[in-house]
Structures are given as structure tokens and as C-alpha cells.
């Protein structure tokens, strides 16, 4: 009984010194990293009866996602959208507001509140499920030994039967750019800018760049997105990428695609970015108050001590992944951004659960064919499965059905009708191979596609399922109708 009062997470240095001399604590499973992959794995392991610890050096749980990623960005996307709507959209709806002003400190505070609530929530879940949170940096000493350098000072040696590495990723740096998180920022800095930059350059037109570029554009920045590839959206469906770029351009974002970034120079409080056409030749210099570097993320393994346990990484620094999420060291597994695969929080969560199930049941499963992607701009973009180019490359015969939101009652009636639903099916069996959506709540709608695909559903199956009227979901149904036969409303 008294054990529950023993300080677990806040240990004083004196207590710490005493503990360093006691015998090492032993755990069934230790998860290193408390991001969406790590904390989910830790909770699942505890629920399945494992004596579990989770090592996290940040003062709050939740990793990049909760603290400086998914969550704060969605809060800012939503609030900046409302601000933009109030300024530009209310009048035509018959709502006359006076001058709409931005209170940036309050906007940021609201974001912090959302983050705080969720990170505290994870702490509560840890306590509820009996996961011990070791606050510090975990370093592998051997296949079963970990040394935790505690934030509070001192260190603690622990033993683990099973280890799950879930240390995630960090923004990739770019040569020629010195990140100070004030003028040259990564996503972390972009979520906390203290004033709206007059001009902002976003380097990298992927999900993060487009989302954060959208936020600051709505708040008043002049945003230019520089992208090396001919299209934005990090390999999304080509047809949608074109439509998406058009839509964002209408919202005021400027795009420089097929453009290579050379380097940057800070001058007179501004940042000058030297660019060049990707095919070589035409050079240019762009000027901005803030530059957002969003060229991708790289695995984070600093201080992990992989070499002490003999864990191998590949040429890109990712921990090598074998069967059952094992590394080359059989009792050490790896999940999430730090290893291969799409760098998505939900992918890490699925892997976390599967890895723990491999440990406890000997069997786990992740269906990598049905992992959706979402861009939370407005309109949202979401997709799952294959796109046309991939199917062409694989030589698979396919059919396409699409339906525009401009023909969807709900979208039309709330005057938010930009975008379309595109369904790609197998030409012979009508099985849904991919779904691509641009439009209101695409991120929610994609779940229907994922469910149908998990069940091996055909477009006709979805078309013959009743969808409520009037909803956006009907557009999904009609796109499926269009794929196997004909839509009614288009």
C-alpha cells in the first residue's frame, strides 16, 4: 500500500543518490520514447500484464505529435481558419462583424491549453494503467540494460526483458540554413512565432509546409512555398495535387515549384534565400522575415546508445526493421518514425500495439495498405491506398470514379463546396484500391474508405450502403457509384 506513495516521477537528488546504489529495477517491457508510438505501446503492454516503464526526456508526454506537431498545428489551423472566415466569409453569410482583430498571444495560449490538456491526459493514462514514467534520456548499455540519465539529476540503471525503441524523428536540417527558431524556423518555431511575419518563405511543399504556410497566410503573412518537385503535396494523387495548388493559390499562397534552394543569408533583419530552377539555370533571390524549413524529418537516435547493444541502422539513420518489429537484436523492437515507413502518428500507434502483441501473444498485425494520410488545410486533403501513377507502374488495370463537392447538397448549402472525391477500383473485381479526397472534412471522410478497404469492399458495396442526406458523405457514395456504374447527381 505504501508503495503507491513512493515518489516515482519526482525524485529528489538525495533519494536518487541512494537509489543508484540499490539493485537495478527489472521490467518486462521498457519503451524508450513517449510519442504516439511509445505511449500507446507502453499503455498496451501494461494492459496486457507486462511490468512496463516508459522513458521520456521531455517534461511532458506525447512526443512531437502532442507537443510540437499534430496537436498544436491543428489548434492553430482551426483558429486561424475561423479568423479568416470572420474577416472574409461572414459578410456574405449575413453576419456583419466590425473590424476583426487578431490577438496572437491569445491564439497561442489557446493552442498551449489544448496541448497541456492532452499531455496531462497521457500522464493520467500512465498512472491509471501502471506505467512507470522514467523522466530522462534512456541509453542502451546492452541488450537488456538501460541507463536513464534523469532530468532531475543522477542516473538510474534498469533491466528490461523487452525493449521497444520509439524515439521518433526530428526536422531535417538543410545545408546553408542556420536554424534559430526565430527567423529560420522548423515546425517547432513556426508554432510559436511571436508576431505575424510580413513575408514568409516555406521551403518544402509537403504536408507540414502547406499546413503551417496556410496558418500564417490566414493570419496575414505573404507566404511563398518553394518546392523542388513539380507538384506539391509529397507524392499525393497528381490530379488532386493540381486542384489543391489551385485552391491554395486562390487563398493567397504563392508557389515556386521545380525550384531548388541553394542557401540563405541573414541581412538587415531579413532572410534572403537563394534559389535556382531545378533543371538548372535561372537563379533568383527571395526575401522574407521568417523562413520555415520543412523539407522532411529524420530519425532521432541521439543518446540512445544503439552501438552498445549492437543495434544496426541503415544509411538514412533509420533503425533497421526485421520481422515482428524486431531489430537485429532479438529482444529489442522498433516502431514509428525512427524506422522505415510513412512518418505518421497513427502508423506508429498501430505498430506500437502490434509490437506489444508480438511480445505477449506471439502475433501482431499492421495493414500497411490501409494507412491514411491527411493534410489539414482548407479544403482538407486525405488519401489512402494507391494512386493512379502507382497502379500504372504496377501494371494493374483500374477504373476511376469521381464526384465533385459542387454537386453535393450539403457542401453547396453551406457554401463550402471546393474539391472532389476520387475512387480508384480494380477494373475486374471493383475492389477499392485507393481513395483520394479534397474537400470539407476529408480527414474524417477517409475513414469510410479505410473501413471498406479493410473488409475488401467494392465500390458497389459502398454505393449500395445508405448514406444520410444531406451530408458530405454522400459525395463519397456517389464517387463509388461513378466508379462501378454511374453517379446520380453528376
Amino acid at each position, binding site marked *: 500500500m505504501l508503495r503507491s506513495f513512493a515518489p516515482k516521477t519526482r525524485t529528489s537528488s538525495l533519494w536518487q543518490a541512494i537509489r543508484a546504489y540499490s539493485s537495478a529495477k527489472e521490467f518486462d517491457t521498457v519503451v524508450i520514447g513517449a510519442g504516439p508510438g511509445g505511449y500507446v505501446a507502453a499503455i498496451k503492454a501494461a494492459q496486457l500484464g507486462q511490468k512496463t516503464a516508459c522513458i521520456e526526456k521531455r517534461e511532458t508526454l506525447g512526443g512531437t505529435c502532442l507537443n510540437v506537431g499534430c496537436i498544436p498545428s491543428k489548434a492553430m489551423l482551426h483558429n486561424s481558419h475561423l479568423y479568416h472566415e470572420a474577416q472574409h466569409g461572414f459578410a456574405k453569410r449575413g453576419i456583419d462583424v466590425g473590424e476583426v482583430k487578431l490577438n496572437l498571444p491569445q491564439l497561442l495560449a489557446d493552442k498551449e491549453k489544448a496541448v497541456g490538456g492532452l499531455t496531462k491526459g497521457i500522464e493520467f493514462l500512465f498512472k491509471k494503467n501502471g506505467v512507470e514514467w522514467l523522466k530522462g534520456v534512456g541509453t542502451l548499455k546492452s541488450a537488456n540494460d538501460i541507463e536513464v540519465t534523469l532530468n532531475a539529476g543522477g542516473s538510474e540503471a534498469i533491466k528490461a526483458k523487452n525493449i521497444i525503441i520509439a524515439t521518433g524523428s526530428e526536422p531535417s536540417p538543410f545545408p546553408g540554413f542556420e536554424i534559430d527558431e526565430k527567423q529560420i524556423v522548423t515546425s517547432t518555431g513556426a508554432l510559436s512565432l511571436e508576431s505575424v511575419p510580413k513575408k514568409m518563405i516555406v521551403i518544402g511543399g509537403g504536408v507540414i509546409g502547406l499546413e503551417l504556410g496556410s496558418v500564417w497566410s490566414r493570419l496575414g503573412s505573404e507566404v511563398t512555398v518553394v518546392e523542388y518537385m513539380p507538384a506539391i503535396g509529397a507524392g499525393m494523387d497528381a490530379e488532386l495535387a493540381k486542384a489543391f495548388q489551385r485552391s491554395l493559390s486562390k487563398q493567397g499562397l504563392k508557389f515556386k515549384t521545380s525550384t531548388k534552394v541553394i542557401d540563405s543569408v541573414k541581412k538587415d533583419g531579413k532572410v534572403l534565400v537563394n534559389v535556382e530552377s531545378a533543371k538548372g539555370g535561372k537563379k533568383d533571390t527571395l526575401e522574407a522575415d521568417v523562413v520555415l524549413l520543412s523539407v522532411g524529418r529524420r530519425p532521432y537516435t541521439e543518446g540512445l546508445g544503439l552501438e552498445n547493444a549492437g543495434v544496426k541502422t541503415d544509411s538514412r539513420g533509420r533503425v533497421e526493421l526485421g520481422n515482428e518489429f524486431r531489430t537485429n537484436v532479438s529482444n529489442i523492437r522498433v516502431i514509428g518514425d525512427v524506422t522505415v515507413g510513412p512518418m505518421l502518428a497513427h502508423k506508429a500507434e498501430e505498430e506500437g500495439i502490434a509490437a506489444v502483441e508480438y511480445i505477449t501473444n506471439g502475433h501482431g498485425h499492421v495493414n500497411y495498405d490501409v494507412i491514411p494520410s491527411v493534410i489539414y488545410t482548407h479544403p482538407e486533403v486525405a488519401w489512402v491506398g494507391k494512386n493512379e501513377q502507382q497502379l500504372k507502374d504496377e501494371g494493374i488495370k483500374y477504373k476511376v470514379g469521381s464526384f465533385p463537392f459542387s454537386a453535393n447538397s450539403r457542401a453547396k448549402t453551406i457554401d463550402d463546396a471546393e474539391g472532389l472525391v476520387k475512387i480508384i477500383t*480494380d477494373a*475486374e*473485381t*471493383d*475492389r477499392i484500391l485507393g481513395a483520394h479526397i479534397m474537400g470539407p472534412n476529408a480527414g474524417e471522410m477517409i475513414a469510410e474508405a479505410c473501413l471498406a478497404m*479493410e*473488409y*475488401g*469492399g*467494392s465500390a*458497389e*458495396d459502398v*454505393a*449500395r*450502403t445508405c448514406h444520410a442526406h444531406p451530408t458530405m458523405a454522400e459525395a463519397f457514395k456517389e464517387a463509388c457509384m461513378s466508379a*462501378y456504374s454511374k453517379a446520380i447527381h453528376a
Partner: protein
Amino acid sequence: MDVEAQDDGVLVKILAPEGTQNVSVNQPIAIIAEEGDDIGSIDIAAPTSENHSTDNSAHDQLSPAVSFAIHANHISNVADIPGSGPKGRILKGDVLSFLKSGKAVINKDAVSHTAPAAAPATAAAAPAKKASPAPSADAETAFLVRSLESSVLRHLAELELAKKTTSVQIPAEKLAKLTKANKSLSESVFALRAAALALHQVPLGKTSTVGVAVDGSKAPTVVEIANAATLSVLDLAAAIKEAAKSGKAAEQTPAVILATEGQYTPQTLPAGATVLVVGKPYAAVSTADAGAVLDSALNELISGSASAGKAAKPTALINVSIIGDSPAAGAFAGKIKGFLSNPELLTF
């Protein structure tokens, strides 16, 4: 942990020996043969593995497109369609390739086997004509028919039982007072005492013994309660408890058997015996009072005020069912009612 076997029998084979870890739910752990079985010739089927147990259930879950395709194409051998979806689900593609494969049995006319000679004799249609008895209904229809059958059978059984039942309703207040006083006494104990006494005045058949039905594997076992008419209610309650524990079958079927609701079906009712089932007290307005209650409610509506006096309060009643073919059942029921309406007579 201890789990009591549902049936009696002889332990023939132990599949999961004592101490086995991680035995999953639904995994057979032992095989019990019935008493009298020839153990030497028992054919013990190999325990089916998890993967096969789902077999037809995947076929029962037909998605909209699949169901449509089956009906539109009049496929009658749905069970033969191989499912390539998750957990063996039939997908639309499976139906399409099944149709192409020629293995589909098309049956446009489900009733008649004598298809007119002029009808196009496709390779698929020919096997249907040669097929033995009725064409197998598709999975959905089969499921519906099974459900209908079982509810009809259940209803028929209830009707049959009702034919043999005489019911009496007895005001419960006096009995309630007595049963509250002592935990071991219940309405059933009083009813059995009443039955034992009533048998002296209204004989039902040759014997005048009473018994209690104790749950068994196939049908309840009837245990006789000796000298029930001379035992006090407290002693009778103890005797009933003893009987339930001993489970020793009576040599001769008693005249009246105390049972609980649903313990007997028309098939398991003991021949020549009368079964007594006592229900729990419930509030009811007797038909005589119902008229008065309705009047009073109407008066309230018309006059807009609560009228006192005429409204009859619902009374607590107990339902006693006497199930049996005896011609004297009606008279017997009347005697039971008489005794139970004045239960103090039973306490001597």
C-alpha cells in the same frame, strides 16, 4: 478453478491435463461419454483448429454488392463460392470470377425442376436439373427459414402446454406475511402443503404422494416427499431442500409434482402426473375491479377532479398453474385456491 460439468457422464479422454497453461475459451478440455455408451467404440473427432471454426459464418455475412450479384444471377450454390476477403469473406470479385468459372449453379426457377425444353440449356443449368431433392436455398433464405422454424416450434410448445393448464389467481397478502416471517418458507412450500392436503379430498389418479422436480440433464428428476400431508410447513421446507440435494428419483411417479416455470416442456411432462407451478406475487386489477377503475378515470377526466372512493386499488396476486390431463384438475385447483387464500390453515 473449478467448473462444474453441465452433464453427468463418464470421463473418457482428458485433452488438457491438469496444470496446462493458456487454455483458450472454447478449446475442448475433455470428452465425457454418456452412461451406457460403449466407450471402446467412441469415435473421438479431432478438435477443430481455430481457423476452421468460422467456416460458414463468413458466408452468412454477404456485403450489399455480393448479395445483389447472387440474386441478380440466381446463384444457388452460394456455399461453394470461395471467399478471398479478410477472414474468408466473399467479395464482389469472388462472385464475378465464380460466375466466369462455370461452377455456379444457376437456378432461375427455384420451385420447378421441369424447366421447359425451349429454355436455353447452358452448361450451368444442366447440373441443376440433375441435382438431387430441393436446390439448396441461398444462405440468407436458409437463415430466415431456420429462425422461423424455431419460433414456430416454440410457439406450438407453449400452446400445447397451455391446453393442459388450469390457472388460479390467489390474493397474496396473507401468504406474503407468512413467508416474510421465515426465510426458509416460500409460496411454493405452502402450495405443496396445500396440494398434499387437497389430494385427500380430490384424488388425482391412484397415488396420493407429492414430489419435487429437481433439474437433470435431459428432464427433471422427481424426488418424492414422504408424508407431506402430515409435515408442518417448516419441516416440509426442510424436506424439499433435502430432496433437491439428494436427487434420488421416486420409484413411483407422485400424483402432484412441484416444479418451477419452464422446467417442463410438453415432451418432458411426466405421464399421468399433475405439475404445480407457483408464480411470484404480481400486482393486478381483477376483471371485476377493472370496470370500477375505468369509471373512476373517466369521471376524473369529465369532472376534472380526483374522485375518491370508486377507484379500486390493484391487488397483489399469485398465479398458480396446475398442469396435467387429469379430469379432476379443475376441482383440485379450486381446493388449492381455497387453501392458499387462507394459508393460516396450512400452518398447523
